């Protein structure tokens, strides 16, 4: 079954929401509910992790940002009294969440005619994902968590799956 990227948007929203709920419930004992926005809403003092999906002439970037206070709570739940470095712990948390969310999006898209490959997540300084053809902004936990997805195809218009 072939679909265009624009047609994916609603389903990808569902995949991202469902995946994040699972992660936060199982790993952190927290409930999250994503809200979708059409414009970017700024997060202050946040850690950001980014991963990429690529399929021939399509590039998608998934960026997850978590505000410092929320990140500290999450690290405390996992690492408790562990003596490991806080920054390393925080980066591992956010990278793994980004990894799982991106992988689930990849699975959905590849089951609908695409053939995305996935890069490893990494912590970055910028939340920039703007690619032009499709942009999705999600926020949760009183705007302390953000997931941004940006997709660009080399030619104008949306990609149809092969």
């Amino acid at each position, binding site marked *: 079954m072939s679909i265009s990227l624009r047609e994916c948007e609603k389903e990808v929203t569902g995949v991202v929401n469902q995946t994040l709920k699972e992660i936060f419930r*199982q790993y952190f004992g927290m409930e999250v509910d994503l809200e979708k926005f059409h414009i970017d809403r700024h997060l202050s003092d946040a850690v950001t992790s980014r991963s990429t999906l690529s399929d021939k002439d399509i590039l998608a970037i998934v960026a997850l940002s978590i505000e410092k206070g929320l990140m500290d709570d999450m690290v405390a739940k*996992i690492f408790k009294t562990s003596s490991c470095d806080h920054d390393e*712990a925080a980066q591992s948390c956010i*990278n793994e969440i980004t*990894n799982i969310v991106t992988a*689930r999006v*990849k699975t959905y898209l*590849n089951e609908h005619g695409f053939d995305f490959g996935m890069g*490893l997540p990494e912590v970055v300084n910028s939340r920039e994902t703007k690619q032009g053809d499709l942009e999705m902004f999600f926020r949760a936990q009183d705007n302390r968590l953000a997931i941004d997805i940006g997709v660009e195809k080399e030619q104008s218009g949306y990609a149809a799956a092969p």
Partner: protein
Amino acid sequence: MSSGILPDAEETSILLVDDNLMTRTLTISMLEHFGFRDIDCAVSGMEAWERIVKMKSSGRLCDVILLDWNMPGMSGYDLLRRCREDRILDDVAIIMLTAENQKRNMLEAIKAGATSYITKPIAHEELFAKLSQAVAWKKKGSHCAV
């Protein structure tokens, strides 16, 4: 956590291979909750391979390997294939851990010799169930896919 102690956990040795600190920390916590005491870790495919070769030469292989699929350098999938091709871990159950839940990946893993497959985020109940099966098969002397 709802799952209890796994029978024979204390006598079962596990090698956990994952490059992510959070995943290792969480998984070790679950394993200890299930009653496992002999838990070793490797943070990369290459480190795991070197550990396995040493274990083999000392005659003390682990019983179960929990192996992350997606790692920099030697991936878990590459390590799995190497182990099964070299026949170095014929009697060891290898459970793949992966964020991807595509059927195609699951089949690829089983074809390459994985005993079973767990999709991240790792759920306590699923890890408990897959480890129970792996330990049971180990007692019977086989790592057939469960």
